[in-house]
């Protein structure tokens, strides 16, 4: 581990892929695409980092380089003081990985058998393994399905199994690639609650990629946003919203058509739909309460909802920002 206590350290990390493309009937050209284009990061021990960005931004590619699956095309990296690809098997014992769309479990075997196989694969002392498994069984509520073959588990059950599998060898760093993708609300809550309790213990560093705003809001103190393989933001969620002036929105259903001349201080009209019976207002300084109170004086309200700014909107703004370098 480096002197300043960083568990993960990358400098100008790059991964290029060659893409062959058909041009005309027979000719083909080669294009070099940088999936990750100079990412420099430092993650301290015990930190829970949200690594976000749109599809194809380079999130998974970065994670695969950090875990020793992909060989970087350039730059340097160290994880737990090791260089991932050359020291892959040593590193594998110190990290846990959950890739949402790739199972680490044995498809045809009961979950419990996958767990005991992993004990042998990672050479974990029986007592440590048993203690960790007991903790996970109660925290993630595994008891009802540990004896079911993995192929028969629901996605939520499988994900809880994957998390357990990733933690049985007591990793220093946990990498999670979209761990809540496709899960129902209850399973998402179970996974989030578990990760929050893991982060609270402070001895496991977690790097999480997600598209889920709630994951980010509930879990991540620090966010790294990447787009086109480059870091475009590194800081807290509040800093991100402040930097890109995200707005909360109020959507109101009215009993009478929207009076087009109505002016609400501190809010602006974004859309008027349904012949004027539904209006979306963006809050620009005023509180939702103020705006609704003023509006109710002018027009009878039927229903309303407040929408929190979405991370996708923020990212959409990041694309549009001229400071973001783009490569094509």
């Amino acid at each position, binding site marked *: 581990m480096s002197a300043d206590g960083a568990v993960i350290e990358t400098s100008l990390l790059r991964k290029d*892929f060659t893409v062959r493309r058909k041009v005309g009937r027979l000719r083909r050209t080669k294009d070099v695409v940088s999936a990750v284009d100079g990412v420099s990061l430092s993650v301290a021990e015990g930190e829970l980092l949200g690594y976000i960005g749109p*599809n194809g931004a380079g999130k*998974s590619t970065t994670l*695969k380089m950090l*875990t*020793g*699956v*992909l*060989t970087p095309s350039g730059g340097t990296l160290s994880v737990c003081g090791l260089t991932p*690809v050359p020291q*892959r*098997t*040593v590193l*594998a*014992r110190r990290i846990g*990985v959950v*890739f949402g*769309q*790739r*199972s*680490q479990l*044995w*498809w*045809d*075997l009961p979950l419990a*058998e996958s767990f005991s*196989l992993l004990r*042998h*694969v*990672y*050479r974990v002392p029986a007592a440590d393994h048993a203690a960790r498994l007991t903790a996970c069984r109660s925290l993630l509520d595994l008891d009802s399905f540990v004896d079911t*073959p993995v192929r028969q588990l629901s996605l939520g059950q499988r994900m809880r199994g994957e998390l357990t599998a990733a933690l049985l060898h007591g990793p220093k760093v946990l990498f999670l*690639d*979209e761990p809540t993708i496709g899960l129902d609300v209850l399973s998402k809550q179970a996974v989030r609650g578990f990760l929050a309790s893991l982060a609270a213990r402070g001895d496991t560093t977690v790097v999480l990629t997600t598209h889920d705003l709630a994951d980010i809001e509930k879990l991540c103190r620090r966010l790294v946003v990447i787009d086109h393989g480059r870091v475009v933001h590194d800081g807290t969620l509040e800093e991100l919203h402040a930097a890109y002036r995200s707005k909360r929105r109020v959507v109101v259903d009215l009993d009478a058509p929207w009076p087009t001349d109505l002016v609400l201080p501190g809010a602006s009209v974004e859309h008027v739909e349904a012949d004027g019976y539904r209006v979306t207002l963006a809050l620009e300084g005023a509180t939702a309460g103020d705006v609704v109170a003023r509006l109710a004086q002018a027009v009878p309200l039927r229903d309303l909802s407040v929408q929190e700014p979405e991370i996708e909107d923020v990212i959409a703004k990041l694309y549009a920002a001229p400071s973001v370098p783009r490569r094509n």
Partner: protein
Amino acid sequence: MANPYLQLLAAQVRSQTQYRVSFAIDLVGSTVLTGLDLVTVWVLFGVNGSLGGFGGREVLLMVGVAAAAFPIADLAVGNVEKLRVYVRSGLFDAVLLRPLSSLGQLVVMDFAPRRVGRVLQGCAIYVVALVAAPVQWSTPVAVLVVFAPLAGAMFFGAIFVAGATVAFWWIDSGEISNAFTYGGKDVAAYPMTVFGGLFRRLFAYGLGFAFVSYLPVLAMLGRSDPLGAPDVLRWCSPLTGLLVAVLAGLFWRTGIRHYRSTGS
């Protein structure tokens, strides 16, 4: 603590027994195919004339070494050809995330117990050939008789691994590696004298298939190579097997560096 590879192997066998019917069909299929191989041998047994300057029973011994060597390689590492499926689906990620050798895991992950039968049948053909052929027994020959099929298995194993490794660059490599494995098995089973000039130079000596069966059998029969290869080469198959295995291992390591891990 038990060896992790053995544990993975046992898990694979347990997984396979979950699909009993398909296991039974596989077993029947491979038995029928080996039966056809035996017919080929029976035909050779009946050859009275000569094949490339060798009698039927001498050729039978060449067939025998290849017949014993190939299924051993197929049992041990034949399932690495599944690599292209893992590369295509990205499942190879899971292999690289475990603290074990990637090649070692691949070998045990798809271990096919039904292939044990083919090893036994191949060895039976070899034993019959050893009895039938005019072997010039001596201590070095006896040692060679034991090591030749193992060296051949190492040779074929290396070709299986090298052929599978191509998938890291070329996912649609399809059956091309089979030309060198199954095709190579057939080339190795005949006297090199039956092949034409360029083909012989390329496959027999360039790629080394002559070392699997032809050259060691010459030593067992106490004959020199009619094509003029130095006599000492007849004893070299364990060395060439080892060399080819090391080269295949290096090729594999290079291949892993080029793994692209498709998908998210």
